[in-house]
């Protein structure tokens, strides 16, 4: 129920803000970029449709009115004289501008270094825009504050918690469909060339900076010798990569690499054993017989 309300509120917010086009990952919960694109295009189309509809109705109305007025006013005559017919006439009329020939009626008694001032009416559409924006402002405050359900926490934080919850659910559902989720209790060394190749790729992208391009060590320990700080079997290596050793500066990669990738990297690291690259860092930790 809460979720449905939220959806409605967010859609209301989108409509109100009039630019659903750029809905964030916050307002439309748990959607990917493709959905975003669809929402964007969809809402742009809807808005365009309404815009065109309003303009078309407005034009119709103006045409009708102008046909109705049989006796021409002085303004009509002046506009025609000045060539302000058709599109130009339309522009002059939506701005409620005085025809240039009749400007003497609205000229002010001001003269500043030769600059004079007319006193044309405020363009009606501009006035409408101003009023609409003021109404919109109150609507916006309503959606985000007055009618918002969450009193306990700010709306942006409530949105966040909701978003994370939804993502967790989606993730669980997705993972449930994947057979044999790999973890540190069941991981095996991968030996296929393709697995080692993608392991190397992940290693180069993420591990090289600290452990060296050939695993010779640098900021982090040498991975090619038989000495290990946190165990040298595949399960231990998998665990070290997954959770990291924060105290020693080893990052936890759980959030950045998939279990499969961690398995591949672990296997690739084990394949480096005994390669004895140049500039190898001195051994650290305990010797582990392979």
């Amino acid at each position, binding site marked *: 129920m809460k979720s449905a309300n939220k959806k409605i509120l967010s859609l209301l917010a989108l409509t109100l803000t009039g630019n*659903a086009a*750029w809905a964030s990952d916050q307002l439309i919960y748990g959607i990917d970029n493709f959905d975003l694109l669809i929402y964007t295009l969809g809402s742009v189309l809807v808005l365009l449709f309404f815009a065109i509809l309003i303009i078309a109705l407005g034009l119709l109305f103006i045409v009708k009115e102008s046909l109705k007025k049989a006796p021409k006013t002085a303004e009509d005559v002046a506009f025609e004289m000045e060539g302000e017919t058709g599109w130009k006439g339309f522009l002059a009329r939506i701005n409620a501008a005085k025809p240039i020939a009749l400007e003497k009626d609205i000229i002010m008694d001001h003269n500043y270094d030769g600059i004079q*001032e007319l*006193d044309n009416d405020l363009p009606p559409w501009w006035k409408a825009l101003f009023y609409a924006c003021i109404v919109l402002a109150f609507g916006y405050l309503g959606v985000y504050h007055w009618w918002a359900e969450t009193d306990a926490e700010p709306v942006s934080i409530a949105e966040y918690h909701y978003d994370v919850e939804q993502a967790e659910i989606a993730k669980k559902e997705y993972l449930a469909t994947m057979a044999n989720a790999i973890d540190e209790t069941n991981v095996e060394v991968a030996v296929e060339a393709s697995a080692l190749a993608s392991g190397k790729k992940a290693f180069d*992208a993420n591990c090289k900076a600290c452990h060296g391009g050939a695993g010779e060590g*640098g900021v982090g320990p040498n991975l090619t010798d038989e000495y290990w700080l946190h165990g040298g079997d595949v399960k231990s290596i998998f665990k070290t990569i997954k959770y990291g050793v924060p105290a020693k500066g080893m990052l936890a990669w759980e*959030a*950045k690499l998939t279990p499969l990738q961690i398995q591949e990297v672990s296997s690739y690291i084990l394949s480096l054993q005994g390669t004895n690259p140049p500039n190898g860092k001195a051994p650290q930790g305990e010797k582990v017989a392979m």
Partner: protein
Amino acid sequence: MIDNEQQHKQETTSANLEHFSYDNVIVKNFAIATMFWGIAGMVVGLLVALQLAHPIFNIGEQAWLTFGRLRPLHTNAVIFAFVGNGMFAGIYYSLPRLVKARMYSDLLGKIHFWGWQLIILSALITLPLGFTQGKEYAELEWPIDIAIAVIWVVFGLNMIMTLVKRRERHLYVAIWFYLATFVTVAVLHIVNSLALPLSLFNSYSVFAGVQDALVQWWYGHNAVAFFLTTPYLGLMYYFVPKAANRPVYSYRLSIIHFWSLIFIYIWAGPHHLLYTALPDWAQSLGTVFSVMLIAPSWGGMLNGLLTLRGVWDKVRTEPVLKFMVVALTAYGMATFEGPMLSFKNVNAITHYTDWTIAHVHVGALGWNGFLTFGMLYWLFPKMYRTKLHSLKLANVHFWLGTLGIVFYVVPMYWAGLTQSLMWKEFTPEGFLKYPNFLETVTQIVPMYMLRAVGGLLYVVGALVGVYNYYMTATSGKLQREEEASAPALQGSHKVKRWHEWIEARPIQMTIFSFVAISIGGIVEFLPTYFVEENTPTIATVKPYTPLELKGRDIYIREGCYLCHSQMIRPFRSETERYGDYSKSGEFVYDHPFQWGSKRTGPDLARLGGKYPDSWHYNHMLDPGSMSPGSIMPSYPWLLEDDISVDDVPAQISLMRNLGVPYEEGYEEKAVADLDKQAEEITESLINDGSDTAPRKEIVALIAYLQRLGVDAGQASNLPLK
């Protein structure tokens, strides 16, 4: 109408006609300064654009030529030197003519001119040296801030005294804008620059964290409003009707849009802080006042464009109008885009990206740049009593500039959207699709290159313009004094319409403007400052150690905040990447705040403990070694230079005066503490093969970086619930 004309004739032929002259020399000086600093600011802009395309342009790994130090130079030069001088040139030309009185004092004018140039010169020297207060567009250190305030008052005094001595009763709309500019910039500048000095070129904002952020963006946003917008609207109201030779379209539109603009603008600052730790209610006020600002902003554009009714054919031939029409159009686009970016859902996508950079350049290059050029195309032939040297070159300038803007902004919009979508994309397993921030940078580097091309076109166009102005000047002779005559103001003024009570009285105008611009700031700031609920404290957040304070000084000096934010927004894509979202209580000891406004690099709010000390050491020495393909410059001098510990006790007591709870007498122990912490870091660095010494700057910087976000809970790769 006929009555008016007769009355006017009577006035001008009456016996008490007074003779006086307008001073063109000061206008010429400001115009030359505009061009000189304009080109300088644009060239520095081109250089920083190239630095983002490739770090090799941080020439010779010299500290003073790195992006972090030159970017403030670029922004300050363009805002305060180019637009500033342009504004003064236009005001010193138009104001005396609009009120039929010479500027009040030649001496004040000279002090104003030379004072302003000296301020710019001091900025040119101090910013590359790293003397900065660490707040965007308000980087200049406190002695320069004081000089700015003094010179600004000189300018205001000269302007208001001219109005007191005027010969035209009713003030023209341009002057309303000039007065609002004077009053508001004074208020903004003084409040935002409030700082306690530690030495001649080092000071600390009196505000901290959330409050500092609110004040800064109240300032930053309204610097755009009252330094880049209102004075230029005033100039537009003079030069457009002059060049078009048409009456201004609507007096009542002037009134409505002037008052609504200055009243509403001041509230909109918090839209720079959406989804940050700023209280939600303040964020929403920022949003809704931005939305309500659309119509008032467009009022200025409409009044300008509709003034051209009946003379649009002139736009085809008259360079002044050509430039000003594009300027007004750019103004209309930017002032529509701004409110759109203020919607939270749009801002969630565009903020911290190059979209913002594109947005400000539509304003800077289109509105300010083109209006300035248009104005100069008017001023030079007029002041030198000659014709423009070459219409053809003016057209070349126009098209190079226009193309330059397009080539600048389109790649930046594209880059901003691309990067933002990459930041936010997840895989079905629930991982970030691009966990490595660098991937999202290298993706848009080609856009950075294109942007530099756009910038280059614009600079070349500006140079063509300068050449044209110069040739125009040499073909004529400067009319130093322009004779004029007008009757003195006589008797008391009969108020025909109630609002003339304000519009015909400069002092009332100034006071009412002041009231209009004060309300928004007060309503937003006072509760944020005084109501504790708005900034809940966190018990575990402790003051920085002396070594970390030194490191923070270096962080500010090198301008790290120009590329790195310290503000994690409450989005899953951000908490996944950076750790838990930022809370206001984490920043209570941050004088000044360092939230940043752009992520050219990743957020650093929870950097502490994420990497080993030696990673930072190697990364600062050569970012590419730890992050291949990085566009961050190298900072080799941090490994060479020593920190000074002489001022540590003074720094501690200064911080205590600002409200940071160091225990009494901690000054005595501070240096020992600093050394102890430095020893530990040095030891860990040496163990990992990096040779250093405890007093090196790099050690202090690492201490600060390793502290970031640690107090409020260690950075975690897991999203915290």
